[in-house]
């Protein structure tokens, strides 16, 4: 059959191969075929472009031969998804090399974030690390310091785990008030992936941790040599040194060829481009755990070494980017929940600004320290309303409102805003980010 097709067609001109913009492979192929006098009149192509047909008409893509397997050796999303990209907020920082980009959660259908859409946070831009020349050094209070190549590291017994990573500053701009009218920008400093690598505990066993060891410094190979101090208990508990993400090697944006994953803790401690692990007896008090990533309280004192992303949830449909465009009637409310302390136990949704709540359906798998999907069937009556979601994790902790958090943290904080999100639905079905008293 396949060989029959092959012989029935004229060879495609080489100019038609491997083009990229605007689904050009298909158009070039069509042009090639048309030029060869075999099939289609060009007018058909134009008609299809202008007016996508409904039944009973047959659309153009059903009447033409598409590009072959040599067209995209590395796949990419449909041309029609070109607006689904990471985005940034230009006024947040002065330089894109020390900045954050946001995952388009409004377009993420499940719990796994696509590698090309996973949010980025750089402190000194994205380094281009050569895996053959990359090394991991483990030293300090150990019996046997160790220098590993990637090949050597990848021979250790490995595991695969699904975990979210959330930047400490996710939701930060909304501490003082509702400021960003977008799900991508209010909640998009998060992603969830399957990570493959070696438990840090295995490597610590290999080097032999001395009795007085209490703290661990993890450091990147980027220009900032981004570094954080971590308590050794967490490192031995569930931290991973990973090279795999969602079926391929880490992307350079995510630390290629090697990064740390510290499950459930604010993203920056999962140091990317990991090159050095030092075991010590006391913290180092690095810039990223003193001058930054500390939380100033209203009384002028500050909280340091606050790592856990507590239980949080958000409705991903509807949201400002995805309004109730179809008018009144049936919709499925959809969202994501997560907790840095374990599994999500419940997610409840309010359609009246938090007066009453209804329990949603959690969709498996419900994994520890991973995004969890929830849904609730809903019939919109066309009236303005206020939608909220509220997560409870396996410790019994219930996601709080912003007003409650402000009682402790004030309005000057930047980090660890895990408050309930309120979406205002207007009579037209548009959705806005609002905060309630």
């Amino acid at each position: 059959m396949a060989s029959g097709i092959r012989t029935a067609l004229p060879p495609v001109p080489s100019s038609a191969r491997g083009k990229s913009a605007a689904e050009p492979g298909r158009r070039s192929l069509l042009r090639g075929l048309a030029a060869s006098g075999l099939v289609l009149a060009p007018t058909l192509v134009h008609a299809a472009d202008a007016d996508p047909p409904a039944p009973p008409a047959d659309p153009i893509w059903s009447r033409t031969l598409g590009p072959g397997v040599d067209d995209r050796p590395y796949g990419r999303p449909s041309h029609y998804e070109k607006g689904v990209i990471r985005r940034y907020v230009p006024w947040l920082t002065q330089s894109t090399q020390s900045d954050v980009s946001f995952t388009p959660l409004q377009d993420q259908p499940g719990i796994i974030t696509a590698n090309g859409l996973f949010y980025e946070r750089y402190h000194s831009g994205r380094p281009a690390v050569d895996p053959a020349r990359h090394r991991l050094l483990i030293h300090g209070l150990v019996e046997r310091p160790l220098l590993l190549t990637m090949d050597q590291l990848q021979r250790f017994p490995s595991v695969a785990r699904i975990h979210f990573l959330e930047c400490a500053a996710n939701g930060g701009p909304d501490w003082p008030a509702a400021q960003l009218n977008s799900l991508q920008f209010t909640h998009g400093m998060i992603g969830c992936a399957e990570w493959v690598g070696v438990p840090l505990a295995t490597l610590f066993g290999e080097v032999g941790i001395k009795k007085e060891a209490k703290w661990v410094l993890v450091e990147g190979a980027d220009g900032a040599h981004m570094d954080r101090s971590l308590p050794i208990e967490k490192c031995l508990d569930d931290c991973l040194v990973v090279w795999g993400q969602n079926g391929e090697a880490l992307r350079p944006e995510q630390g290629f060829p090697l990064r740390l994953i510290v499950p459930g803790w604010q993203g920056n401690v999962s140091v990317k481009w990991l090159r050095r692990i030092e075991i010590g007896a006391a913290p180092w008090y690095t810039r990223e755990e003193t001058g930054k990533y500390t939380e100033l309280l209203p009384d002028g004192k500050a909280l340091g070494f606050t790592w856990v992303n507590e239980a949080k949830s958000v409705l991903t449909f509807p949201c400002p980017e995805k309004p109730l465009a179809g008018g009144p009637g049936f919709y499925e409310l959809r969202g994501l929940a997560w907790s840095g302390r374990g599994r999500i136990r419940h997610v409840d949704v309010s359609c009246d600004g938090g007066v009453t709540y209804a329990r949603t359906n959690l969709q498996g798998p419900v994994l520890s320290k991973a995004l969890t999907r929830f849904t609730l069937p809903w019939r919109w009556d066309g009236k303005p309303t206020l939608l909220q979601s509220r997560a409870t994790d396996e410790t019994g902790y219930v996601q709080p409102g912003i007003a409650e958090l402000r009682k402790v943290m004030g309005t000057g904080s930047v980090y660890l805003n895990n408050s309930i999100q309120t979406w205002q639905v207007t009579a037209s079905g548009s959705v806005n980010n609002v905060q309630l008293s």
Partner: protein
Amino acid sequence: MSSSPSRRIVAPLLALLLGAATAAPAGAQGASPGHYGLGTTPTPAQIAGWSIAVPPSGANLPPGHGSVSQGSELFGTVCAVCHGAFGEGAADYPKLAGGVGSLATVAPAETVGSYWPYATTLFDFINRAMPFYAPHSLTPDQVYAVTAFLLNLNGIVPDGFVADAKTVPAVKMPNRDGFIWKDPRPLTHDTECMTNCTDPARLRITSNAADVHLTPRTTGPLDDMKSKSP
């Protein structure tokens, strides 16, 4: 198919499985150092080359020294382009000086002088990450000098201060005791209220992001917000 397989088969099988199960973790975390025998032992020179972190004790500070005046000159040529001639911060780059007494106000300025608890962190960070556009391009003497200048700019050390491995850890920063190094979370203790959770009569929208125009476009190409379309 038999519903109860012979014990004579199951028992040795179980023993085998259990044996395997206990052997596997022993191969991982319980193993003695060097169990896998992978990798090489780094030389002291290799470790020293990468081991740059400086804790508050000052351990690991390199030999060398730098004065306030040397740092002043360097800062003007290397650092001021971003941080401003007086550490005031150009554009949105970090402000490095001032802000003492502001932390408990509504407009706190978290600078090196007002906020950072340890002077060693200053040396460490300049050495590891600065200047932003050319990291690791300063010599230890130069890092000491810029450290000295910034401490002096913040009024923490006198004009004659010379930074070195002894003097930097001895500096007591103004906000040294301003941190609580233990997370008090959870901060809230809500219950899973399902009905009458709040008084609907008191429900009020306090802020709406649609009223402030701070949101970049979330469709089409990336929005640099420089030429916002109407």
